């Protein structure tokens, strides 16, 4: 299936998807409010069947005042890769958990919470993953300051 065919199918699922330019694999952006319903359809539709969540990550865009969440999906039956992007505000970084659809999302979301401080509503066990429980700040944010960190000299 080519990217154009896949995108046409995704528009059948939800007309509000937007294709992101110059991405590989095909990346679409969905408003955060419809994300959970959209993902549920992606997983259950027989011609898509994205049953594996490969990866979940976040990106920090301080100048746009946004966090960008990325979900990498894989359909084993149809051998399709898809990246679903969504944007949330930096002031109130709330997103819905995907752990009801894919159990692994629980742990990938814990990683993102640990490093970016994104709060997942409905998450069964939202805790720090890599850092200690009393760690202050979220290190992968672009404005993270740490007196311990050494900057590379020029």
């Amino acid at each position, binding site marked *: 299936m080519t990217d154009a065919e896949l995108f046409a199918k995704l528009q059948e699922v939800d007309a509000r998807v937007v294709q992101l330019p110059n991405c590989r694999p095909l990346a679409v952006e969905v408003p955060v409010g419809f994300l959970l319903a959209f993902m549920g359809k992606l997983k259950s539709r027989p011609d898509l069947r994205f049953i594996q969540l490969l990866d979940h990550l976040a990106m920090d865009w301080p100048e746009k005042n946004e966090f960008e969440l990325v979900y990498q999906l894989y359909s084993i039956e149809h051998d399709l890769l898809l990246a679903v992007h969504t944007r949330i505000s930096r002031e109130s970084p709330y997103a819905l958990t995907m752990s009801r659809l894919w159990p692994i999302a629980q742990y990938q979301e814990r990683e993102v919470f640990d490093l970016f401080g994104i709060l997942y509503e409905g998450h069964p066990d939202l805790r720090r993953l890599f*850092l200690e429980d009393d760690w202050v700040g979220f*290190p992968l944010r672009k404005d993270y300051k740490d007196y311990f960190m050494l900057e*590379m000299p020029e």
Partner: protein
Amino acid sequence: MTGQSSYVLTSMDRIMNWARANSLWPLAFGTSCCAIEMMMSSMASRHDLSRFGAEVVRPTPRQADLLILAGTIVKRMAKPLRVLYEQMPEPRYVIATGACTISGGPFTYNSYTTVRGADEIIPVDVFVPGCPPRPEALIYGIMTLQKMIKTGEAYGQPYQRRRPITAALPPGMTQAQLQKEIAEFLEAHATIDVDKAAHNNRWEKERY
């Protein structure tokens, strides 16, 4: 009589140090890449560490007297590492292998967790540079530690901080030269002449 007893004591010291140096029991402590090279050198058949009496790798610190730090130490690991070190019986020796344990290595800059140098947490006797050090380099480090123990330098003094020694393989050394040196070392240090050792002791000479 006092002279006699001190004569015996210094000889005993020698023998004890010799025994300690030739029966180091390392703790199986590996955090990352260096652990593989440590396993290659300590237990695999090519670089057999049992020639130096240091092959009995113990999983628990209470039976070990040599801590080979193999791999990066991060902030979260610092506390368990300190606990492991405190649990080891005296006298205890520490070899830190790899660039990460010496200075932070490739993870020095822009890392918010890496501890830059394991000697910030526990006292280290010997640094073995490399990323990761070859098994030969680790063996060279263990040979250095053995020499230190035999001369009494590395004798565990509680609360006394020693400066670590960097045991780097000399540049340009070939494998054949290294093997020759190891063979000579094994020949020279596998046996001890008690009388000679006692008479060669500097402290003894000053006294009489």
